Structure formats: structure tokens, C-alpha cells
């Protein structure tokens, strides 16, 4: 039986969570949901993977000092 049929957070909200753009209260709610929802946890993992690509590539082209300073 599938207990989780709906997800309270849209994919965009999960992305905003990854970006640190949600309020503390909303972030906490997302974290609680992620603990029990593999689908959403996978989405968050995917976002983190995508987010990791561009900065890693860019970072290697002479802007390391810039990124370290942020």
C-alpha cells in the first residue's frame, strides 16, 4: 500500500529549500517531510547534484579566490 500519495511541497519549493530561500519555518517543514518521503529526498539530491556542477566547473577557471572569499 502506498501511504504517501501527495507531496506537500512542489518541486520548485524543494529547489528553493536547496537554495536556502525558504523561511526557517518552511525549511523545517521540508526537512520533516524529507525524512519520510523518498521521492522528495531524491528530488532534493538531484537538485544538489545539479547545483554542484556549474560552480565546480566555473571555479576551476581562475575564480577560486573569489569563491573562497564568499
Amino acid at each position, binding site marked *: 500500500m502506498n501511504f504517501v500519495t501527495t507531496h506537500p511541497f512542489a*518541486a*520548485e519549493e524543494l*529547489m*528553493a529549500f536547496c*537554495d536556502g*530561500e525558504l523561511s526557517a519555518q518552511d525549511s523545517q517543514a521540508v526537512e520533516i517531510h524529507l525524512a519520510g518521503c523518498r521521492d522528495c529526498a531524491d528530488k532534493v539530491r*538531484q*537538485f544538489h*547534484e*545539479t*547545483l554542484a*556542477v*556549474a*560552480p*565546480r*566547473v*566555473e*571555479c*576551476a*577557471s*581562475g*575564480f577560486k*579566490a*573569489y569563491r573562497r*572569499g*564568499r
Partner: protein
Amino acid sequence: MKGAGGMMDDLLPAGDLHSMAGKPGGMDRASMNSGTNSGAVMPVAENSDEQLMRAFSRGSNDAFSALFVRYKQPLFGFFWRRVADRAQAEELTQEAFVAVIRAAPRYEQSARFRTYLYAIALKILRAHRRKAAFRATFLGSPTEQVEPAAESGVVTQLFMREAIRKLEVMDREILLLREFEQLSYGEIAELLNLPVNTVRSRLFRARTALRELLSENAPTNSREMSRPEEGI
């Protein structure tokens, strides 16, 4: 080839700041901090961007130097990802700082300095693209590539450059502002005059598209994707 850091050190050397700013150089750090309640003199480096810009608008060249040090590489990076080559990025970076200097007497803080600076940079970039398009149309010179620049032809950066280039213009701009300039959704919204929700949905769309494009074209050799010394 001259490194980005070396190049930027040549930009607006300290000796030129006074003449370019056209301001009295007499303001010292104590007067720069006169707006603080404590009256204590803070080192320039500890001031916020906004404090520094206000101080510069009142004549502190130290404040401008500090802002220049903070933003020379981010601003150069901003342009370098958006124009065809490094020399153009250098020129545009310098142009942006000159614009900051010229606008300083009229500066009124209505947003974060970072947003203010990137708004200037975007205006300069758009003007540059208009000129490039004009040259291409009427003078027959090659059209400038507006996609993020690449320095060499390694596989990873080509995939990334190609993928980013395929995004819709506004989506690409939002993605770049978020991923590279690391602006918040609110800052991007302010800069591009869009609602925050639009920024969020377009960013989502851009990232989804980017992920799909990268997965379609991923190098077969996975180690290629994680080379540490290659840039976009």
C-alpha cells in the same frame, strides 16, 4: 596568458583613483566611519558594501579601493561568462567601475550595493551587445558570441557551455546570476524587474533543462566531468 588576478590588479590602479573619482582625497577612515553610532574607527575591510559606497559618495577613496578589491574578480567573472573573450571582459569591468565612480555623487541607497553594481554591469553589457550587433549588421564584423566564454576546448566545459547556450535567454541570465553571481531570488528579481515567483519558476525550468541537457550529452568518461582544473 595573463591570469585574471594579474589583469585585474592592473585595472584602476590606486594612483588613478583620485583623478578618476574627481573627489577630494582628504576623507580619512575616521570620517568614513562617522555614520556609525559608536564613533569607533572600523577597519575598511569590516564595513559593509553599503557603508563603503556611502563613504565613497562622500569622498573616501579608501572606501572605493575596498569595494574595488571585493568586486573586481566577481565583476570580471560576470562579464567573462557573458562575452566572447577576456579582453572584452576586462574593458567592460573597467567601464563598470568607472560608472560606479561617476554615479557616486548621486548614490542613494535603495538596494543592496551588490544589486546596484550588477544592475550597472547589466546595463553596460546590454549596451555592449547593442554595439556589437550594430557592428555586425552595418559594418560586417563578426557577431559576438553572447554565451559564456570558454578558454579552451575541453570536453566538460564544451558540454556545459553548449547546455547553457541552449537555454532561453532570460532563463540563462537568471541561472547565471544565481549559480555564478550567487544572487538571491529577491536580488535577481530586483535586478531583472521580475516577480520573485517568476524568478523561481524560471530558475527551476533552467536547472531542469540544464540537467537534462547535461545528462543527454554527458561524457562517457565520468572522470572527465570532475576534472578540477578546467573552466567554463
